[in-house]
């Protein structure tokens, strides 16, 4: 079974580090290197190093690339300045979400996309189909590249120590091509943790050398290796959606809590007509609770004795010390402070609707 999983360019390093490995999106990846809570706290307080080589990496080039992406995805990519990134989604014709992804503009006619590993095939198939007729070519570079993230308040110092002091000046959701230890990389100030952080895309053969370099220069700043468990707990505190939990084919961007970031636009795009006529039937809300028994994905949620939806993700927040959860609820959006009940394996537990995100770093 394991032989069918794709291996990261850092696989040998993970085994040597004693990582606990897991199947994620068809890849064998570190779930944790030691304690997932320690990894989580290190990212909030110093820095963590993540292997994201499973994520889909696509390039779209050509004079029609911007216009083609405008049609294929949500967002106005042709109007985005070079060096910017934007959060976007690829929708099915019925308005359901095929995937959420980030689009980076690297040149006038050159875009780079990072999408979820588990949706790579669907994204590649739909994108290439939708780009037909535009002067644009898509290349799936996933298996030829690696992706490493440095996340946490110390990440600018770590990048500087690695040889990229200009990283500190890169604004949020900005990207630039750079050279790191002699290797051409795409450096982006994006992440999935709610902290200052960087993502470094490199050619696959360079990944191991860059990984080792970042560990070596990062350790004096408190950098630790971090796995997917910490990545999940960090993103949930920051209320960032995870495909398959908060987002799926049966959910529109607004129903997935992303309506404020992703609005419709004047130009036509796949899913636009459906979004215009499809009513919003559910809302993504934040819940907090007391005690230590987490409300987990799939648990039913009740309002005034009526089942109104279910938990999409939940845990005992390592940073905040109380229970947090995201829930998808039918009907009108409940106001913050509304009392709800979650059935946790047969026992009703009290939760309160709260504003999102649960955690946000102090504004600098």
């Amino acid at each position: 079974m394991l032989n069918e999983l794709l291996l990261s360019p850092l696989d040998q390093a993970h085994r040597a580090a004693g990582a606990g490995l897991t199947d994620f999106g068809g890849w064998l990846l570190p779930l944790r290197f030691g304690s997932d809570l320690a990894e989580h706290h290190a990212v909030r307080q110093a820095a963590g190093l993540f292997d994201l080589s499973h994520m889909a990496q696509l390039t779209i080039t050509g004079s029609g690339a911007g216009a083609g992406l405008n049609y294929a995805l949500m967002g106005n990519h042709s109007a985005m300045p070079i060096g910017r990134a934007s959060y976007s989604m690829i929708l099915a014709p019925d308005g359901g979400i095929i995937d959420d992804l980030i689009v980076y503009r690297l040149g006038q006619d050159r875009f780079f996309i990072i999408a979820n590993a588990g949706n790579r095939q669907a994204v590649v198939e739909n994108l290439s189909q939708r780009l037909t007729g535009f002067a644009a070519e898509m290349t799936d570079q996933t298996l030829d590249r690696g992706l490493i993230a440095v996340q946490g308040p110390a990440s600018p110092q770590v990048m500087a120590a690695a040889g990229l002091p200009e990283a500190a000046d890169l604004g949020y959701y900005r990207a630039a091509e750079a050279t790191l230890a002699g290797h051409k990389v795409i450096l982006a100030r994006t992440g999935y943790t709610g902290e200052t952080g960087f993502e470094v895309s490199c050619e696959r053969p360079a990944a191991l050398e860059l990984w080792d370099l970042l560990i070596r220069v990062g350790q004096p700043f408190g950098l630790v290796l971090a796995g997917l468990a910490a990545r999940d707990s960090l993103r949930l505190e920051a209320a960032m959606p995870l495909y398959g939990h908060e987002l799926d084919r049966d959910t529109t961007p607004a129903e997935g809590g992303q309506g404020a970031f992703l609005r419709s636009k004047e130009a036509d795009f796949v899913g636009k007509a459906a979004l215009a006529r499809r009513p919003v039937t559910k809302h993504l809300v934040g819940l907090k609770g007391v005690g230590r028994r987490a409300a987990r994905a799939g648990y039913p949620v009740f309002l005034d004795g009526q089942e109104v939806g279910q938990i999409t993700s939940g845990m005992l927040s390592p940073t905040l010390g109380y229970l947090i959860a995201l829930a998808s609820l039918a009907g009108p959006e409940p106001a913050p402070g509304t009392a709800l009940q979650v059935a946790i394996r047969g026992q009703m537990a009290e939760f309160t609707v709260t504003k999102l995100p649960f955690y946000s770093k102090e504004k600098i």
Partner: protein
Amino acid sequence: MTNVPADLFYTADHEWVRQPEGSVARVGVTEFATLALGDVTFLDLPSVGDGVEAGSQCGEIESTKSVSPLYAPVSGTVSAVNDAVLDVPELVNQDPFGQGWLFEVNPTTHGGLLDAEAYAALIAIEDHPG
């Protein structure tokens, strides 16, 4: 290879028991289990005086990522519960065979327990999490 103390007995569900034929049998989960679970955040344990039955669920162990049933490795009456792990569940990860013990039972009978050698062989063929 994870630690498998030779003086303990084990279940295939990764609980350990000390002195299952003595007057007091102490129960916990193995290091292998803690590596698979991740950091333990909550424990639902039986109370002193509760009867437990070998092989039946008697509680829950919840970690950052999952919830797993806890099975009693022996039958009998619970005689003590480790309050320390209820307050500090991380003790289970830090010292699963020592301070991270869960509860004690005055045992009557036990299901077929594994000795350390048999348990080590069992976890060697399972997907190694650590």
